[in-house]
């Protein structure tokens, strides 16, 4: 097992290296093909003084000759950047000259909290619905569950968000405060905007909304996996032994259906980041999704690359965890 973990971690590092290199290479290609972004600094049509252009290139880290040869992977600047990352230097923003590492320190915890609630929502709701539908296969409950989750998934996240913020949140908050008071949990939880004074409470609702992304996929995955197990020999044996249905579901069916489910969660995790961009924007949460979105808008190349690198790290990390969990859930899988 230990050896497997090490091997898996090394593979993860390699994947990460490839992702980072691809990011870098795409950026280098865009400079090589579309032209030097440093000239943009001067308003496009102006032909800047050569010395000033060189100065801006230094500022952007674009002063390497490789950026003039199309297709050149620009390995030297790539190595430089990795070196900086290793020493903890993530650079600064163009606008305001702020330390990117410091910004990440603010944004990452917010997004993590958002994902905690989103994952909890996704797992709990889809487990309950999927299990319920599987146990009542082909009957009214099954059709209802499949129908409503498809419906929920078809409504775009931004629509759910906007209707929540502009229609539901205000009356709900006022109502809750009329009963429980402003400072209570209920008085805060429905607020239309994130508030840094209540960093956990005011992120619950946005988290639940992000959690609805991929609800249909997940519910169907769970339903299918459980159906497969429900018809299997060991369930028939368990039934024959006279075990209660609840015990059969939890111990034999759910545990054995975990493999595809965990895979699905790992996959949806990356997907949720897109939901986070919208949610963080609409509900005013200073998080990673919003940061990347704004960085793209403001052409903060460094911030974009760092932001995407961080999400790549997270996705790779989650998939390692998923791999390791396989062994925990399925005794037939042993890593030697």
């Amino acid at each position, binding site marked *: 097992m230990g050896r497997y973990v090490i091997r898996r971690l090394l593979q993860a590092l390699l994947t990460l290296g490839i992702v980072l290199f691809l990011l870098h290479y795409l950026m280098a290609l865009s400079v090589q093909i579309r032209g030097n972004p440093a000239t943009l600094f001067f308003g496009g049509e102006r032909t800047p003084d050569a010395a000033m252009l060189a*100065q801006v290139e230094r500022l952007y880290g674009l002063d390497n000759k490789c950026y003039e040869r199309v297709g050149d992977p620009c390995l030297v600047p790539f190595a430089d950047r990795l070196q900086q990352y290793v020493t903890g230097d993530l650079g600064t923003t163009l606008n305001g000259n702020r330390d990117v590492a410091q910004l990440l320190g603010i944004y990452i915890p917010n997004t993590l909290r958002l994902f905690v609630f989103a994952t909890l929502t996704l797992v709990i709701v889809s487990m309950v619905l999927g299990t319920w539908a599987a146990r009542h296969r082909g009957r009214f409950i099954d059709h209802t569950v499949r129908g409503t989750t498809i419906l929920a998934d078809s409504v775009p996240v931004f629509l759910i968000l906007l209707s929540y913020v502009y229609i539901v949140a205000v009356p709900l*908050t006022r109502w809750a405060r009329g009963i429980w008071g402003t400072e209570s949990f209920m008085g805060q939880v429905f*607020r239309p905007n994130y508030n840094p004074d209540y960093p956990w409470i005011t992120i619950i609702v946005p988290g639940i909304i992000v959690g609805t992304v991929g609800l249909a996929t997940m519910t169907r995955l769970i339903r299918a996996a459980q159906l497969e197990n429900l018809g299997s020999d060991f369930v028939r044996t368990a039934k024959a032994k006279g075990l209660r249905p609840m015990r059969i579901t939890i111990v034999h069916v759910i545990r054995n259906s975990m493999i595809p489910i965990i895979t699905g969660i790992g996959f949806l995790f990356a997907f949720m980041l897109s939901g986070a961009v919208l949610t963080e924007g609409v509900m005013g949460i200073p998080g990673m999704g919003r940061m990347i979105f704004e960085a793209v808008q403001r052409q903060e190349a460094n911030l974009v690359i760092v932001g995407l690198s961080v999400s790549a790290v997270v996705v790779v990390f989650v998939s390692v965890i998923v791999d390791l969990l396989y062994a925990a859930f399925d005794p037939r899988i042993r890593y030697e």
Partner: protein
Amino acid sequence: MKRMRMTVAALAAVGMTAATAACAGDEGDVGGGGGGDAIVNMQIGDVRSLIPGGSGESEGFRIIKNVYDGLVYYNRETGEPENLAAEEVSSPDNQTWTIKIKEGLTFHNGEPVNAEAFIRSWDRTAYAPNVLPLNYFFATVEGYDAMNPEPKPEDTWADPEVPEYDPVETTHLSGLTAIDDLTLEVKLSAPFLGFPTMLGYEAFYPIAQECLDDLEACEAKPIGNGPFMFEEPYDIEAGGSVVRWEDYQGDMPAQIDGVNWKVYLAGDDCWADFLTGDIDVCRPTAADYQNAMADEDLTTRLIQQEDPSILMLSFPLYDAKYQDVNLRRAISMAIDREGVLNVVGPERFYPLDTFVPASILGGGQGTCGEYCTYDPEGAKDLLAQAGGWPEGEKLKIWVNDANDNVDIFRAIGDSISQSLGIEYELVTMEWTDYLPAREGHQLDGPFRNGWSPDYNLNENYLEPIYGGGASVNDMGYENPEYDAKIAAAGAAATLDEAVALYQEAEAILAADMPSAPVFGEKFNYFYTDRLENVYVHPIYSGPGGDCELREVTVK
């Protein structure tokens, strides 16, 4: 000479006729702060700096003006500067000013507020290598040039937007002298009658020595001399709170226990939080505007005032096509200002027929007169006199694409096009590209131009926008007669005389018409029913919702 401009539309706000909407409060059942603490919750945007001289934009200033006391404070009804930290500001010749500071004033940390406190602050801002945004406010003080040499060649700066200087020996403005502990003498390089009117602005606030010793700590937790003080550091992302300073000795104490500022960044606004009672003063965005105005309960808590910010369509006088004043007049007369208002929201603006709005001292002269009045026939006649519009050519109107500028200028362009029968093209640019293009005289058609005042004097709408000569101002406007009038006004013996001379300069400007005044702005701020005594300052209030925090009370 390099001229600085207020690039951040800041310091917004309104007509002297401070419409003080009374609070028809019924005993509201929601929103009342639970603990009984009278804390007011305000919205705020990105703060650049909280140390005087470093902000120069609305968001920093709305905190600074409550944490610090300046020498004077602008009366919210008349706009006149009234002594706050100053006992007396006087001058025999408008060139050497003597400022007496009140006795017994201190900073939050106990340091005295004396002549030295002002000198160290002004020296810091005026010192070129500090690269502070309000540096230019000291250009009129003697000794400024010694502290502000030409910067090093642009291509040697590490960051092309931050000038660098060779070491500057002079660190003190020679025009500033502490006559005694509480008397400050200021020598200007030329007589300037309006000097006392500038003293209420952030650039002229004092700074404590402890703050200079550790600027970073002071930036997070400012050490002021005003009625509110910070106990916890301010956070650019999360906002922060101030509490009432119990030992405040000044004349404008706080009535509430504290203020909490919550940050709303681009794309996010306070309206939903206002409706739940979590923000106390807020402006609805365009999308929420109609609902808000239709709500009878809400409109009892609305403050609607004229804002001294103005919007203009300026002409590129450096372009051969726009040399004839009749062409410029024709374009201005072709704009149906009322009609455009109906398209973009009638409550947001009012039609402007003058170069200085009425809410500013010496403004409201109506100098644009008939040329700012919609008259399509008259416009066509003027265009014919100017030799007509070149066949087949499009009128290019340049605009930066922020907010709903594009919608507004499309409506303006439609109106011009319809009245004059010429085609137009709206060219949009990002603000960061637009600004240098405008300053660099690269726009080949009429362009959007806006202005918010720095201080309450008509001069502020004349000299900074149209002065400096053709190579310096955005329009490429130059008229020796106009410049002479401005200079004469600056040297006038009394304020009344100066204002009258500036008005004459405005008349010259109107005759030349380098810009067509289009709209004056209005703001609409709503407040929650727990507040009373909500007043909005006519000159200095933050955009998006603000009020006089020294006067507001909580029921």
